[in-house]
């Protein structure tokens, strides 16, 4: 029941006892503020990891070649392993079942790209159409490299969003010609990539075009593939081990040689990242709960102190005809009002601080620090309830004290 007089009485008590009001309000506001900030920053860390480990299909495997580190079958160590087109064919036939997308690739670093006055250096990859799902590239404009492009050795490229921004600004890039190390290519598409800036500064060209760019041969640099997503993590690891073993046999590499073939299975990484994220989540949760508990203890202490301090006043009120329930009601109304208001204030300050931080802490691995609304509102409600209970217990006790005892309390 709304009772204006009660509220007037409450506002009077609160405003005439400013120190007390501010003290209890501050505890709550500060607890919520800390909670919001810590939680937000924790989430920022999480966002950074999510971003850095996203960007490639989670079921992907990349195979690079290097030099042998062990002699094997009469061959010396330090021999360079070179993938060739027959490896592509070999893998394709051997693992038809397991492989989902598959693309051999040729990569060139620091290729000079010129369009009219603008120029910059980029990574250029010669790939098959299957590379698009591997990279999780999303076409923004135009199209990706097609089967026909590969077959025709077309001099076409699909460029990353940032390449387009660097060279074309806001203008249309599709159909324009870019010079890559002096050879002219037509832009057929622009893509975006959740992997971020690095992945959006890439240029893709048909595999066959790249293979013939510098010299006519059948060499290639690495393979990218995704395995059938139905495979479980363990099965995927078995698959990649088998893949490695067979490829080592084909190239006469010692099975124990770690340097000649480098196989990156994202399943392993994904497992690690998942574990790390879980630990991070637990830490964030721990911090959050810790802050809340500290806040609850703080507000409980203050409420006990406040009621203790008011014992005499409550005794006077009782002598003048205040019933126990009106005493409890009064204290509860005050504590709920103060904690709710202060909690909301702390919440606002916290959320605005996080907004203000924004991307300012990105170099410390904190990206978009933010909190889900329900988390903070929930935390505030918990503190309000805590404040209420913390107020209720001493209020209940105070209401039971015989007025004469309370009056003698000096």
């Amino acid at each position: 029941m709304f009772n204006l007089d009660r509220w007037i009485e409450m506002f009077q008590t609160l405003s005439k006892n400013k120190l007390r009001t501010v003290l209890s309000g501050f505890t709550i506001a500060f607890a919520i503020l800390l909670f919001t900030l810590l939680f937000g920053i924790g989430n920022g860390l999480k966002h950074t990891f999510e971003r850095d480990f996203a960007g490639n299909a989670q079921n992907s495997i990349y195979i690079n070649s290097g030099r042998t580190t062990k002699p094997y079958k009469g061959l010396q160590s330090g021999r360079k392993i070179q993938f060739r087109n027959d490896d592509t064919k070999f893998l394709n036939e051997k693992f038809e079942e397991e492989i989902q997308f598959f693309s051999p690739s040729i990569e060139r670093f620091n290729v000079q790209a010129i369009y009219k006055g603008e120029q910059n250096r980029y990574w250029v990859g010669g790939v098959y159409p299957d590379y698009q799902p591997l990279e999780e590239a999303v076409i923004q404009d135009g199209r990706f490299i097609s089967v026909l492009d590969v077959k025709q050795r077309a001099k076409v490229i699909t460029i990353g969003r940032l390449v387009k921004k660097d060279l074309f600004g806001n203008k249309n890039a599709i159909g324009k010609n870019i010079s890559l190390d002096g050879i002219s290519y037509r832009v057929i598409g622009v893509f975006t990539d959740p992997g971020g800036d690095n992945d959006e500064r890439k240029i893709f060209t048909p595999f066959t075009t790249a293979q013939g760019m510098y010299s006519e041969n059948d060499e290639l640099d690495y393979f990218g593939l995704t395995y059938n997503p139905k495979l479980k993590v363990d099965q995927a690891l078995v698959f990649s081990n088998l893949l490695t073993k067979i490829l080592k046999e084909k190239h006469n590499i010692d099975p124990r040689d770690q340097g000649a073939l480098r196989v990156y299975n994202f399943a392993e990484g994904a497992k690690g990242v998942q574990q790390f994220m879980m630990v991070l989540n637990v830490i964030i949760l721990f911090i959050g709960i810790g802050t809340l508990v500290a806040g609850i203890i703080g507000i409980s202490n203050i409420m006990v102190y406040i009621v203790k301090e008011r014992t005499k006043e409550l005794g006077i009120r009782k002598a003048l005809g205040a019933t126990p329930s009106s005493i409890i009601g009064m204290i509860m109304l005050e504590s709920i009002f103060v904690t709710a208001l202060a909690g909301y204030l702390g919440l606002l300050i916290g959320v605005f601080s996080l907004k203000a931080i924004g991307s300012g802490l990105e170099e410390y691995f904190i990206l978009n620090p933010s909190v889900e609304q329900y988390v903070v509102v929930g935390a505030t409600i918990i503190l309000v309830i805590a404040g209420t209970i913390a107020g209720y217990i001493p209020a209940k006790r105070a209401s039971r004290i015989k007025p004469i005892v309370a009056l003698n309390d000096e």
Partner: protein
Amino acid sequence: MIKIEKLHKSYPIGKDSLHVLKGLDLHIKEGEFVSIMGSSGSGKSTLLNIVGLLDGHDEGKYYLNGQLIENLDEKKAAILRNKFLGFVFQSFNLITYKTALENVALPLYYQGMGRKERQVIALKYLDKVGIKERADHLPSELSGGEKQRVAIARALVTNPKVVLADEPTGALDSTTSGSVMELLKEISREGMTVFVITHEEDIAAGTDRIVRLRDGVITSDEKTKQKVNA
């Protein structure tokens, strides 16, 4: 107005209990101005607390305004206090952060009276005790005599049946004490029952009837000469 029969009260002290009131019989009629005299430990404060419904009794009967007081829960006691009783304490017991006017109006708040009405009535009673112009002052800005006047106004504001005063002049100098006693006397002349507890002879002498208490029993109960003169 107040009728007490064979009243007993003891307080537990550890495992033992201290028998404070040992079978009191007392009858105070409406409009009487009575003082309870006794040294400390005589049981006079205990008696006042029981009469004032601030504390319960163990044995015997207590009628307030004809109503038998028994099995009183806190809520009923609070309502009866508010309706029938007004308190004046030695240490004034004003709420420090409320002005004189707000202190006086507080019992009316607990009666559920509207704000404007409360203030009008409270001001009337402040006027009655002669400190209307101090209405907006906090207790800390008032002298001892003024504080006690505010407390008396607060005790009267609900128009109770009985005013209970516990050493009302205990914290005041003799001049101020005199004027406070005058005020209480005036109130009793208007027909209100006034019940004063004191250990000072001259204060007791200012009342109409003196009840002497010693070790929990009434040793004497006599009318003062003033009553005869009046």
